[in-house]
């Protein structure tokens, strides 16, 4: 049996269903499963599970499912080093969003990460504590700040309404996901010129740590060939799987 998880609600779910339907793969809800299980017509070896986008990322990392569709932002946050853990099979062309570094628009002297570095260092020197960055993307933030050689900051974990943190006084800077930037602007924030950490979209991803039995491999090959008949999707995945 091959297990595939897709988002259980929202636009991501609708887009997923449409994406499969366009490729002639029709999803059928399982009776009595309260909408948490489904299957693909004519593919009895594929079990479809409907999970939250975050659960899909952590289940892939844990090897509990073979395949999953979720935002690349969540996958990269869950597994900063994808090698040996996950394989991104295909970007799906929906669910576009950017993970960005945003500061108050009042900080007219801050336009780039280099400016932010100066301000972080000055803040640490003056207040003897570090400037706070609110985010639910701690790993992505850490990597990106390290890449930009910023070290005088600390992360405060935030679950939701991150854009309100600077106004609420719980953090000075945020790292958050945005599609149009409107929510950030409404909260008096601006994105730094070189502050785009990740241009994310929905990805069909495989767990490399799942139990890839011969049966699961066969079902996966059939599914991927059906989804993209001419594409090398399956052979690219197999090259990553343990032998």
């Amino acid at each position, binding site marked *: 049996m091959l297990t595939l998880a897709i988002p259980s609600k929202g636009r991501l779910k609708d887009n997923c269903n449409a994406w499969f339907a366009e490729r002639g793969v029709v999803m059928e809800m399982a009776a009595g499963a309260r909408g948490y299980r489904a299957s693909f017509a004519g593919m009895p070896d594929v079990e479809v599970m409907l999970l939250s986008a975050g659960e899909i990322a952590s289940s892939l990392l844990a090897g509990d499912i073979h395949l999953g569709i979720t935002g690349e932002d969540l996958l990269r946050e869950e597994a900063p080093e994808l090698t040996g853990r996950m394989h991104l099979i295909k970007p799906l062309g929906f669910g576009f969003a950017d993970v960005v570094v945003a500061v108050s628009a009042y900080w007219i*002297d801050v336009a780039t990460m280099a400016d932010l570095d100066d301000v972080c260092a000055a*803040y640490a020197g003056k207040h003897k504590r570090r400037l706070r960055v609110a985010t639910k993307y701690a790993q992505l933030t850490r990597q990106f700040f390290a890449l930009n050689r910023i070290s005088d900051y600390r992360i405060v974990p935030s679950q939701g309404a991150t854009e309100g943190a600077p106004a609420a006084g719980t953090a000075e800077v945020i790292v958050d996901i945005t599609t149009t930037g409107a929510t950030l602007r409404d909260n008096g924030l601006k994105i730094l010129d070189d502050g785009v950490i990740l241009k994310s979209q929905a990805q069909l991803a495989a767990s490399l740590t799942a139990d890839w039995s011969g049966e699961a491999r066969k079902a996966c090959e059939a599914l991927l060939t059906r989804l993209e008949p001419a594409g090398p999707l399956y052979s690219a995945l197999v090259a990553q799987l343990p032998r």
Partner: protein
Amino acid sequence: MAAFPYYDSKAIDALNGQAVSLLGLFASRGYGREEPAVLQPAEIFLDRSGEEIRRRTFTLIDPSGRELCLRPDLTIPICREAVMSKRSFPARIAYNGLVFRHQPGEPHRPTQFFQAGVELLGLQDRAAGETEILSLVVDALKVCGLSDFTIRIGDLALFNALVDALALPAGWRSRLKRHFWRAGYVESLLYWLGHGDGKAKLPGTLEEIEALLDARGDAPMAGRSREDIITRALDRAADAANLRLDAKVADAVAQLLDISGPAEESLAKVRALLATAGIKLDPQLVAMDARLATLKSLNIDPARVQFTAHFGRNMEYYTGFVFELWARDKEGPVQIAGGGRYDSMMEMLGAKKPVSAIGVAIRTERVLAAKRGGK
């Protein structure tokens, strides 16, 4: 060594035997052993140290929701205690214990290992402190029975003084100093300063800046005052107008940073390049000469002492003299001890005034491995 080491009785006996000799030596020089808790409140490490320590620190949340961590070193908790208990200075403290480090991208390296070391806090005479610590680490390896090692030395103060001597705006000088320990970055900044066009037009007058701020009155201040922002915006505009370094000076500094090799020879090259660039750094060079003299008096063959101008100790808290001792185990060169000066840490941890600090940590398991043999 494995990611999760298992110590059998032979290994424990060897480690304990060595620890007794080391702590005995430390005690004979006035360093009493202390031991902070293994589990520490996370904030002193996360808030007071830089990214390099942070990304390698194991953190956890206790059942009440408090963020804790496994100590990634003993220096910070020991210094913290010295501040909190208002210790009288100079204070001499020794330790021997496990530290815990995540090894990103290197899953085969151990997540825990022993460190034996000392901290010398609040000794006014910095040169005397350096001599004391250097002799101690050399003697420590002697009591461990390891004689085949090399020493790498460097000095962040030398670089800071060099940057201060450059005709650059203050903001750029502090940026260069802040990034000294990151290989490659400073060189590219220098190249850009000496050869790039580096001109950016920014709103420069007070009126322009105030108008911009007034237009954004609804946005959060986010922890900074209006004055802060105005001052920095003015500085930034002035910097952008003046950002230029004589190409000859920029190149001399970049070449200087590239110097690495036998210490006496390297320092002669440093002096020559400084002369070319027209920069005087006598106090820093005299301090370096004194360290070499100390090593010589400890019977260290000068051929075994390397000077590296761009010495990137990977703990950001070092502020001046830094050193590493290297030996070989069966897999190749391995760092067996490291230390240096960290004069700003005590203040970062809450001391009311600056307290000089210098210390060294010895990787005792690596010393044993090096004795078992490399060759």
